[in-house]
């Protein structure tokens, strides 16, 4: 399929040779795979409706500062972009791409007055045995912490038992290597979930075709919807 620049509603995307080289260098962290761009102008926020797909599940989580909480504390009251992930994922079309995309989305949203204080980002690990709060804190780096206009929370669970209802609720497939095939990564279709302030999943993205500008527009659509409801 033809691939060309994704026109941003607010700005044109930059695509210099140096950028490409940098990105290819990034790809070398994991597998060899080309990357490409979408080729459409995303619809304008507020001109379309995002359906109520399913309620976001609840469950026991623990944050990067080892504070225990319920997931619903992170999926209600604000528009939430939630990524189910694990830190050891090295498939650059998976969790690393999601991390990168979320960082882009967060950066764009923090420029928006309308989004400040009304949007959050959550990365929730489905590998509790490895992804301790300390590991999640290291993974999040400078993004960890809530003192930003759009906070990014890095959550994990204390056990597989705690994780179960959330995986089931999000219908997230995860398979682990059999013992005889140890060393392989967890197998999963990486999805991001956009959740409204009432805790309803309103959009599901796959990183195979993830355009940050589309996600930003969807978030703005939910913010406009919320504002209209308040009015």
């Amino acid at each position, binding site marked *: *399929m*033809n*691939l060309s620049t*994704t026109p941003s509603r607010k700005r044109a*995307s*930059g695509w210099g040779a140096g*950028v490409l080289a*940098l*990105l290819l260098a*990034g790809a070398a*962290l994991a597998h060899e795979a080309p*990357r*490409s*761009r*979408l080729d459409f102008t995303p*619809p304008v926020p507020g001109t*379309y409706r995002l*359906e109520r*797909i*399913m309620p976001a599940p609840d469950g026991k989580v623990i944050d990067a500062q080892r504070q225990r909480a319920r997931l619903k504390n992170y999926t209600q009251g604000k528009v939430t972009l939630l990524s189910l992930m694990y*830190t*050891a994922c*090295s498939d650059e*079309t998976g969790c*690393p*791409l999601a*991390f*990168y995309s979320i*960082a*882009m989305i967060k950066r764009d949203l923090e420029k928006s007055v309308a989004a400040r204080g009304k949007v959050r980002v959550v990365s929730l690990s489905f590998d*509790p045995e*490895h992804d*301790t709060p*300390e*590991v999640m804190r*290291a*993974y999040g*780096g400078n993004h960890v912490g809530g003192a930003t206009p759009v906070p990014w929370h890095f959550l994990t669970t204390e056990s*597989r*038992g705690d994780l*179960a209802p959330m*995986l*089931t609720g999000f*219908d997230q497939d*995860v*398979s*682990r*290597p059999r013992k005889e095939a140890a060393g392989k990564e967890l197998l999963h*279709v990486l*999805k991001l*979930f956009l959740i409204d302030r009432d805790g309803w999943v309103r959009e*599901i993205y*796959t*990183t*195979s*075709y*993830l*355009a*940050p500008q*589309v996600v930003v527009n969807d978030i703005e659509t939910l913010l406009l919807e919320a504002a209209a409801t308040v009015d």
Partner: protein
Amino acid sequence: MSGRSVSRRALDGAIIAAFAATSLATGSALVANHAFADETCNSPYMRNVIKGQEDYVYVWTLGVEGLGDGSDKIVTIDVNPASSQYGKIVHALSVGARGEAHHMGFTDDRRHLWAGGLDDSRIYIFDVYSDPSRPKLVRSLSDLPQRTGLVGPHTFYAMPGRMLVQFLSNSDDHGGATGMAVFTNKGELIRSYKMPTAQGGDGYGYDIGINPKKNVMLTSSFTGWNNYMMDFGKMLQDPEAMKRFGQTMVLWDVKTMQPKKIFNVPGSPLEIRWSLNEGDNWAITASALTSTLWLVKQDAGGEWQAKAVGNIGDPAQIPLPVDISITADGKGLWVNTFMDGKTRYIDLTDPEHPRQTYEKVTGKQVNMVSQSWDGKRVYITSSLLANWDKKGDNDEQVLRAFSWDGNELKPLFELDCYAHKLGRAHHMKFGTNSIKAAYEPLDDTLAQAR
């Protein structure tokens, strides 16, 4: 939870984060290329896992009264030449009803296979990951006409975390005006959409094909319950019935699920195949009644256009092209023509000027055609619709497998579905042991933990 030192893997994550932060400064936008493999007709949102030899072909068979239990079945055939069961039925699961079994589709995670009945409008959801050799029915949906007004679930198309289903008819008059409905992967109805009837739309539906990189979806158009459940010979003699076939394709905005453009495509355009070749931006379809190939492509100004680019066989003989299967490189197309039982290869090197380079009679009647990702294996089945299939000795019901070396289709094995009391062979999907062999669902260990 015990404290733990930061591992090398976490450091990798930090490196990735640093990479992301650096990239952010450039304002670049990335999208991962989809790692295409598997069947060439699957949704692009689907996990594609079969990069080599497929292990199974699932066939959704229509029950025949008086044959076995008379019910529709999902039949699993071992197609791996390395297996001792090669070419044999390894499992057959009856759904206990005869509802005009037709098409199937995997969810995006390839864990479940959805299958529908055009007559009873039921949808069956099979688990194909717990044991790929033995699909297990986990849910059936039976009240869709009441809930949506739609009849005849046809195409099952994976979207992220959802299934988009194209219907063929409606519960008011059983005509061709219809719609689509989207469900969660678990089978919960999210909402339905009507096919457009304004701006030249005829309201009909058939297949779905999405191009995510362009944010566009194409739909095609067939006919309603009144026709597809009518005896074929009787319908051909009914001038009014023959007027009630789809004449359009619709281009949709996937994000908004709103129609953007309606193309006049006479003769009932059926299966839609986007070229999977990187850099291509076109789709192809075949109109059944006019035996015409149609190309949908952006023009130099970026406007989507549909145009007839060639005939399939001699349209005057009404060969009735049915299923089509595009090669992984977008350079070729298999076309089955039902009436003359031929499987034809169309060279699409120049999609504006397709040309047939090969044909072979592969059955007395042929409908569906599927090919492996490497193009070396081609499978065909025989049934179109219970009341449209040929009669008497010409009503053979088979799955036939062929090898393809670029010059000749050579028989590998065949399965007589009547002899095995399975019924009429319709849609096929490939199955694989590859995930099961290397991985176990975390769900299982979670269940143990619970």
